[in-house]
């Protein structure tokens, strides 16, 4: 998918039939020259980010200063540095070999592409926003030229060209055109193909843990940077660089190596990831982005709960947000809010239990009749029940029904939590950092997320988890193996529901108000059932990291790209279609699913632990 931007270049390539087997570059430049060009132009690009790119500070980020890169320049600088490093690594420079365990050429190409795309995006948006290329300072031209040169040099690196399929002489012109397009596409794919990485050697465990810490720190930095981007251009640049950069590191084999190392220290990794997440509020100076953090965390936690139902047990639930709603309403009703007909104020632990239990009961009530259905029918019925919940909550307002939920006005002024004298509404000073309201809730939510991750991990890798996967794979065979299908599915449904309810209890306090309109099937603001499902599918079904990353992206992108405006949902739909076409297993694929969707890929027959 990431290679698409270069597709138009391919047809220009003179495809001599003799080049079929011998590796050669995309352009007629010798490989050695190309490599030198990529490395040299990479260095020049780094230098160019220290120049001024435009004359006025009207373009956000202030790109006018010599000697001090700012905003998008920093992103280009990072991209260029990575390109240069990778290019040097392909020269077998001592000490850099670890960067490219699966051969550096493909990685250099992608890194150069990342730099090029970010640099040209910047230059073009300067020209467009300020009205013409005259607004570019020499630095802008320099970076445009050098990043292009680096890309050209990188693309000249040799690769194995695929043999074109023989052409059927009877083909019509249209078929020939399609044939040449297909060949072009194959060539493009081959351009960025890398060998499978060498297995990572055994390091002393302290070194491996250090690598994990470094990887987590990098992840936290990237996430914090993304969440803290202050203007649209910077976020788009961030997305471009992060997307292509990740692809480059993946092709270099680094991602695979880190994955192997984390697989050896799973508990350390999970624990470290929570520490890294808990450090997030300390990187923020005010509560502005901690708000985003806690909303993302709520969304992600619910998505992870849905992943048990959809990813493990294979039950397509289109009304999942209702369980979040039940939990939130239950917590709101006993929170001491003036709108609640029960004028009680339970301690939080009791509210949590009530919220989870209410969702559990609701889940069993919905599951018991519907789980006898399979596939599409189940999806439709759950969709219906999701809407029934919302409409019921709307009608329990004292006029259409008994006064419980205060109708469409919802339950407002939910007081802040106070656990053991710790007031969640107040700002606290921890080690010199001021931790605001949303950061407080962020920590609380993190605990809930940890519970959900724990439940997911442990139940997934056990007798019940295997039964879920078996039901998903082949229900008839699973029944014949002695699995009580209905019971096992009901457990999955109930577990998923109560985890969502758990998240709902916190959500009620974070948002102050609980209204039925927060729990739609589809709407522009996550979480809603459609977005939850999208987060699971986009991130990767059956994994832990997948829904977390999917949810973060799905929340951040609409939030940061305000200029999309009314086209938000449209863009989202297009992105989802593209993703499903080119990476149906999701961003973080479960090994199982990857093999399922890419049968042609060489089958690394050995599968590690269950999923994740």
């Amino acid at each position: 998918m990431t290679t698409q931007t270069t597709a138009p270049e391919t047809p220009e390539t003179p495809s001599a039939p003799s080049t079929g087997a011998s590796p050669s570059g995309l352009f007629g430049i010798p490989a050695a020259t190309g490599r030198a060009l990529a490395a040299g132009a990479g260095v020049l690009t780094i230098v160019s980010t220290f120049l001024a790119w435009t004359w006025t500070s009207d373009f956000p980020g202030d790109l006018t200063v010599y000697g001090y890169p700012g905003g998008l320049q920093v992103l280009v600088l990072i991209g260029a540095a990575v390109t240069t490093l990778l290019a040097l690594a392909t020269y077998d420079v001592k000490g850099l070999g670890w960067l490219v365990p699966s051969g550096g050429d493909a990685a250099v190409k992608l890194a150069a592409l990342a730099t090029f795309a970010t640099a040209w995006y910047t230059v073009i948006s300067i020209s467009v926003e300020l009205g013409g290329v005259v607004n570019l300072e020499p630095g802008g031209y320099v970076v445009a030229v050098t990043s292009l040169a680096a890309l050209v040099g990188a693309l000249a690196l040799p690769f194995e060209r695929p043999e074109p399929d023989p052409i059927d002489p009877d083909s019509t012109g249209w078929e020939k055109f399609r044939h040449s397009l297909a060949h072009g596409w194959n060539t493009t794919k081959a351009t960025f193909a890398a060998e499978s990485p060498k297995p990572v050697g055994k390091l002393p465990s302290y070194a491996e843990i250090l690598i994990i810490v470094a990887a987590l720190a990098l992840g936290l930095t990237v996430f914090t940077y993304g969440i803290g981007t202050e203007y649209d251009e910077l976020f788009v640049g961030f997305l471009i660089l992060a997307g292509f950069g990740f692809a480059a590191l993946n092709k270099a084999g680094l991602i695979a190596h880190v994955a192997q190392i984390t697989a050896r220290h799973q508990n350390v990794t999970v624990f470290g990831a929570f520490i890294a997440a808990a450090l997030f509020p300390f990187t923020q100076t005010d509560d502005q982005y901690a708000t985003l953090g806690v909303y993302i965390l709520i969304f992600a936690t619910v998505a992870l709960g849905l992943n048990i139902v959809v990813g493990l047990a294979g039950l397509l639930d289109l009304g999942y947000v209702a369980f979040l709603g039940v939990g939130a309403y239950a917590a709101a009703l006993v929170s001491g809010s003036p709108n609640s007909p029960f004028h009680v104020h339970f301690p939080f632990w009791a509210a949590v239990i009530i919220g989870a239990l209410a969702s559990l009961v609701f889940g069993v009530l919905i599951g018991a009749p519907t789980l006898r259905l399979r596939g599409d029918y189940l999806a439709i019925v759950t969709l219906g029940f999701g809407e029934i919940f919302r409409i019921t909550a709307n009608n329990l307002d004292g006029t259409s029904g008994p006064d419980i939920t205060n109708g469409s006005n919802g339950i407002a002024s939910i007081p802040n939590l106070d656990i053991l004298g710790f007031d969640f509404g107040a700002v606290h000073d921890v080690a010199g950092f001021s931790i605001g309201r949303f950061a407080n809730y962020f920590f609380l939510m993190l605990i809930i997320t940890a519970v959900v991750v724990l439940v997911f991990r442990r139940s997934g890798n056990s007798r019940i988890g295997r039964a879920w996967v078996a039901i998903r794979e082949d229900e008839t065979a699973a029944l014949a193996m002695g699995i009580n299908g209905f019971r096992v599915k009901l457990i999955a449904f109930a577990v998923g529901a109560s985890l969502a309810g758990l998240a709902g209890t916190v959500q009620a306090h974070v948002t102050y108000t609980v209204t039925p309109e927060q729990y739609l099937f589809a709407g522009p603001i996550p979480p809603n059932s459609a977005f939850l499902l999208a987060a699971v599918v986009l991130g990767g079904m059956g994994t832990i990291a997948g829904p977390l990353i999917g949810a973060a992206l799905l929340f951040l992108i609409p939030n940061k790209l305000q200029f999309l405006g009314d086209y938000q949902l449209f863009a989202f739909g297009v992105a989802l279609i593209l993703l499903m076409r080119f990476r149906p297993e999701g961003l973080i694929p479960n090994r199982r699913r990857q093999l399922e969707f890419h049968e042609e890929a060489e089958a690394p027959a050995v599968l590690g632990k269950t999923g994740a």
Partner: protein
Amino acid sequence: MTTETTTKDTAPGASVPGERVLDARGVTMRFGGLTAVRGVDLTVNSGEIVGLIGPNGAGKTTFFNCLTGLYVPTEGEVRYKGNVLPPKSFKVTAAGIARTFQNIRLFANMTVLENVLVGRHTRTKEGFWSAVLRGPGFHRAEAASRARAMELLEFVGLDSKAEHLARNLPYGEQRKLEIARALASEPGLLLLDEPTAGMNPQETRATEELVFAIRDMGIAVLVIEHDMRFIFNLCDRVAVLVQGEKLIEGDSATVQGDERVVAAYLGEPFEGAPGAAEAAEVAEAEATAAEADATASKADATAAGATTADAEAATADADADTTTDAAPGKENDR
């Protein structure tokens, strides 16, 4: 074949020799107006291998589905060790009847080991809370399950591929894995639905040994098969099902010698018989009209619609004794 090594160690579902393991009485299965199985009686004693043969569409798999609770028989009852079986397939498995499927139904995206562990489901108790809390009991049960599963994989010769995805196994090994998965539920009776379909002679021979080894573990076996050599080598008794009814039951010699069986079972239109050859056979059939008539009268009584020529062609084929009619997926498995 590595099967001989671990045969004697465990026979959890084993029972006293001679005990009646399976007792199906008057099993009838109707789908609307169609009677797929009509009044079939069948018994299997412990330590026995019983074969079930019959032409395609005779109702063998439907009968299997009735035994394993996938279908609820319209009439009749099925007893396992004297107890009437519940009409739910997972309860049947828990009671002690395990099965394999005609078209392999492994959990393709699970590993070989996980497939067998799923088979252990009825013999383990750990529920959701135990999995989340992970007390010592959980670890003990999980370790025991894994050890038992590895034993079974060793038994069928797949222990070296425990971490492979089931989908990546070659065909013959998938069949073996299905048997291992069925054995994991510690059955007293194993139902095999065409275990050698699509196998070459060597693999068939290996499967034969495997089935003997399973019998030696004290597990009774009921097997559907089209490979006559396999069936007659293996089985103590053979029952013939034709048009949903049991034609005859007895030892290999009785069944082989019964000309009704030969006519009825092989009287079906021979699959893939070329038109030209058919014409020649018709001529041949006319030449031996008197003989053919005698056969035809019996064939008509049992297998309506079988033409003289077809019956003749099939009889000729039966002499060759190599009828391996494997068309996986042809019969309804569900």
